[in-house]
């Protein structure tokens, strides 16, 4: 019988620790499919960050490094400058990338480091149990904004793709979502293209993946997907910000 659907080779065959309905699993699979299809697992070094995905070095079959909070782009820079023929990616959440690691991501991007960043934006800190993130939406309730995020108290959410797309070194910048099949297919294309941009030595590439956190949002997995679609997509517009027509 023909196999029509299987686990990507780049994904280790062990149970993941993520909560039911969490979209990390989807994003992991998309990254692994890209590594498989491009045949680059053997020369890829992945950098995991701090947050729920801190130990995805157990899940990705390529060589992996766990980085300090927010520093994954700096660690990736050190790896890529040492192994320019290899493929290097970081996998970071919104707290890691857009709060504590803002300097590292901006400077890796502006230097045009030939690395790829998969940026998971679920508008909340997951691992530490639901605190306000830099990407938390206005009026969104979290454990550290229990009365909702108020601009006068907490400021405004950061739009990472819009911010990074002002930098010359960031040659491929795209925001995708994983709330339905169509969007998952688009996300797959974007992630694959981001790796291809790196393989073609063009510069820094990033894909922001709008994701859910049912546990800390206090919603069922299905409600969480709906909440993402209704609330996040309108504030964080999907699409390409740089490098749509980049030849790879």
């Amino acid at each position, binding site marked *: 019988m023909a196999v029509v659907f299987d686990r990507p080779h780049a994904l280790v065959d062990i149970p993941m620790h993520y909560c039911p309905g969490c979209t990390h699993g989807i994003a992991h699979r998309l990254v692994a499919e890209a590594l498989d299809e491009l045949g680059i697992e053997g020369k890829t070094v992945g950098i995991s960050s701090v947050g729920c995905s801190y130990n995805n070095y*157990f899940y990705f079959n390529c060589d992996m490094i*766990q*980085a300090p909070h927010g520093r994954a782009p*700096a660690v990736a820079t050190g790896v890529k400058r040492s192994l320019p023929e290899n493929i290097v990616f970081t996998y970071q959440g919104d707290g890691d990338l857009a709060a504590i690691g803002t300097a*590292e991501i*901006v*400077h890796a991007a502006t230097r045009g480091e030939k690395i790829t960043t998969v940026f998971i934006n679920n508008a909340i800190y997951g691992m530490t149990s639901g605190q306000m993130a830099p990407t938390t939406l206005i009026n969104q309730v979290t454990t550290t904004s229990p009365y909702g995020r108020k601009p006068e108290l907490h400021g405004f959410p950061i739009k990472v793709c819009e911010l990074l797309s002002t930098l010359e070194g960031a040659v491929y910048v795209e925001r995708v979502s994983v709330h339905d099949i169509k969007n998952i297919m688009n996300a797959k294309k974007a992630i694959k293209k981001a790796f291809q941009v790196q393989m073609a030595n063009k510069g820094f590439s990033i894909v922001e993946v709008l994701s859910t956190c049912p546990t800390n949002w206090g919603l069922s997995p299905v409600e969480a997907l709906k909440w993402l679609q209704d609330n996040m997509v309108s504030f964080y517009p999907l699409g390409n910000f740089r490098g749509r027509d980049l030849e790879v």
Partner: protein
Amino acid sequence: MGERLLMKGNEVIAEAAIRAGCRHYFGYPITPQTEIAHYMAKKMPKVGGVFLQAESEVAAINMVYGAASAGKRVMTSSSSPGISLKQEGISYASGARLPAVVVNIMRGGPGLGGIQPSQSDYFQATKGGGHGDYHMIVLAPSSVQEMYELTIDAFNLADTYRMLTMILGDGILGQMMEVVNFRDEEPIVQADKSWATTGHGMKREHNIITSIHLDPAVLEQWNRELQEKYRLIAEKEQRYELYRCEDAEIIIVAYGSVARIAKNVIKVAEEEGIKVGLLRPITLWPFPTKAFEQVIDKPRAFLTVEMSSGQMLEDVMLAVNGRKPVYFTGRMGGMIPQVDDIMAKIREIKAN
């Protein structure tokens, strides 16, 4: 016979790193060590190496973390406030067992402090400035020649023990020029780096570099292995110089540039008929307790001299362990102990 050159201490560290096979340097400007970056920026492209000016000391140490994970000989350098910023990365690299060289050319603190020489980062360097039970090997050169030799050794020690090695100098050593005799060929240790994350080429299991172990039993075992390594290093790698200690009444304990001042003190004391010796730690961690065992019976007292409020003093007291009196004199904030100040203390001890 190798080259003989007149060079600045900071530049010699950079040159020695390149001679040791370091091809990756990540740094951020700060006085009084920036000549290291200048030298690397000029030289690295000529030897096919990488010089990268990072956006911060935090980023620089994490670039070191990445390059070390990739199995490369890598270095970063800074001065006191910048080294404080690197402590996070130093702790992580220690936890992840990564070999690399970190240079601290100390200046006065705390805070932004000043830019004049100091030794007030001794605690930070030797006791673990970051979190967790870890150590770095800490080497303290006392001349420009030694900055060259110890930099070569630093890379070898880092690779041998798969850990960070720090070169702890001060603003005097960094800025002064002396003649250096270079070897034609350096003794390079070729360490096994099969643990490095270089891409597995579909030929082996994936390698993982990490410092996190959420199971406390696993983390304790990891720590036990680190401590066992530290014990071995403390046994095998203590280095020190004993200068005129044979019949000394008073033994000065000093490292780095202060040890050179101490040698002048010894001459002046001799003219006054006081026999003074010098015990100079070269490894600050591991602290050279064996040196004290060698000389402990001879002197009436030890005198620790530092450009700090008395940090190494605590290790000296632990090594002497009450067997002889231990005195201290020092200056802070970038002020340098003068021969006269130290002589006054010696006369006071002698009169006791």
